């Protein structure tokens, strides 16, 4: 394997790692809690921006790089800072938007937040350098690495971060919190009758999901060294939801598989030969393909590849013994109602 294709693989793996972070996070707020957060990528952006401005030094007039903060913090702290910022944003948005969970209302409010935020960021250079965006962000181990092999340097960082986040997600999946979140999603009125504070549960899920998005954003800005407001995140948003849906909503492992598949599609499309005179067709083809993939998944297998895992299972032998249970004859099956 020559170094060029090796580099390509390393880069694809880093992209997978970032998308997987996004997917696992979205699996918590959308997969488990059922919140259709269409502004998810705004959380990613906030994570990127705050991660960046925490790691950057003071504003650099010579380079025309204006921004707030600029505390020259080490990158692990900056990544954490990005996650916290996104989590806080999720909290604010949740307090406003999650009162009525009808998907349409939620989608429009979240988009509204995104749009306002995006416009403010683009038009206020002193925040995050406006349209130009942040650049010159100090990359982890960047000073000592060869830029040509940087993907290999960054890959372990992504692996460790993703690994930690996956462990947390697994812990949540199997916990009382996870059960409660899913119960609220299944029937919020019943959950309320069972003593659950529904709003609090939903907001906490949203905050966690957004924090994951923030980490993904921070990883992005540290990998690339720069970040600016792209016009639209529709493509990325579709990709994220597709990843969660393909893998199976409410399933951490499924979210990882889904991310792998979607990343594969998105990267693989590069290999379609460019048509002379219309070099930008690849981007359009990618968009169309992804849209079709999402629709296909929703049509053929809306529950995804993996079913939602039951958080708790009983180990028959031990527990039955402990209780000295003799199995009762099963209830007669009768017709419903």
């Amino acid at each position, binding site marked *: 394997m020559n170094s060029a294709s090796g580099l390509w693989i390393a880069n694809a793996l880093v992209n997978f790692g970032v998308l997987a972070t996004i997917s696992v996070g979205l699996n918590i707020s959308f997969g488990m809690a059922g919140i259709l957060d269409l502004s998810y990528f705004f959380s990613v952006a906030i994570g990127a921006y705050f991660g960046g401005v925490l790691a950057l030094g003071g504003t650099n007039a010579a380079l025309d790089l204006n921004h707030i903060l600029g505390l020259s913090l080490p990158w692990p702290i900056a990544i954490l800072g990005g996650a916290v910022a996104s989590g806080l944003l999720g909290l604010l948005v949740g307090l406003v938007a999650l009162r009525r969970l009808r998907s349409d209302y939620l989608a429009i409010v979240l988009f509204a937040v995104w749009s306002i935020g995006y416009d403010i960021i683009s038009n206020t250079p002193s925040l995050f350098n406006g349209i130009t965006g942040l650049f010159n962000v100090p990359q982890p181990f960047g000073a000592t690495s060869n830029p040509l092999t940087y993907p290999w340097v960054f890959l372990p960082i992504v692996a460790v971060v993703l690994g930690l986040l996956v462990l947390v997600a697994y812990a949540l999946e199997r916990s009382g919190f*996870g*059960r409660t979140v899913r*119960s609220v999603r299944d029937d919020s009125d019943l959950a309320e*009758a069972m003593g659950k504070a*529904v709003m609090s549960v939903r907001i906490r899920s949203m905050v966690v999901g957004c924090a994951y998005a923030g980490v993904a954003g921070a990883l992005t800005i540290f990998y690339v060294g720069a970040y600016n407001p792209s016009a639209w995140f529709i493509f990325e948003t579709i990709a994220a939801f597709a990843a969660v849906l393909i893998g199976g909503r409410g399933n951490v492992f499924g979210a990882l598989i889904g991310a792998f598949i979607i990343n594969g599609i998105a990267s693989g499309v590069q290999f379609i030969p460019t048509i002379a005179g219309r070099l930008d067709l690849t981007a359009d083809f990618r968009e169309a393909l992804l849209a079709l993939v999402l629709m296909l998944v929703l049509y053929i297998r809306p529950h995804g590849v993996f079913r939602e895992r039951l958080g708790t299972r009983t180990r028959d032998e031990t527990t039955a013994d402990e209780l000295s249970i003799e199995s009762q004859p099963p209830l007669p099956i*009768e017709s*419903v109602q």
Partner: protein
Amino acid sequence: MNSVSEAPPILEVMGLSKAFGGVQAVHDCRFEITQRVTGIIGPNGAGKSTLIGLLSGTLLADAGRICFGGNEITRMAPHRRSQLGLTRTFQISRQFHTLSVLENLLVASPDADDRLIGAIVLRRQMKRRDRESVKRSLQVLEDVGLYAKRDDRAGELSGGQMRLLEIARAIIRQPKLVLFDEPTAGVNPVLIERVEEQLRNMAESGTTVLLVEHNLKVVERMCDSVIVVANGSVIAVGSMEEHRANDEVVKAYLGTGEA
């Protein structure tokens, strides 16, 4: 218990009123619950569902007061009332359909731990508590007859099994008062016996049972006292025998052929 003074009523409703868009569904409703098992009956449209909504907290009263176990709960949110020990079931069985039968109970269990941070950093402690919770839940499932279905998703149960799950969830909450909303509706006669058995067990273990029912035979078999609601107010309190002799009650039910 002191034989001279009675224990204070666990539930007191005073002057409760609620209107929907011009229709007065509940009007100056008042009653007390002091017995172990009390029934609430009344013809369709009497306001029973509204009353249940007001008691459980899904509806907020326009006027009046509700006191539960000495606490004023009139404007309290539903989940807080539930945490105080007032549990309800639903007329059409509801369940957490993607969760297993066991998980349905774990969620309902009063020691369910929802903490987010705790879930991440206190894993060993949580696992221990979970085991206790699982043991308790399995026992309840066994008592109710759903043990074999414990790992099945609740959405896959039959109608009668869902009804039993409702009851199991109520049992595990160890509530002070449970409001059963038509627990025998749509349940076949064989199962009605089992439902009654469970309700009796709950009452015997100290829970006050409030039973809203259409099936008057069940009410007669089970209830120490029966409240009759019509046109949004309480029109009579007593035994079924008394009610049958009561002209007003009979008139309220006239035409429904239920009495």
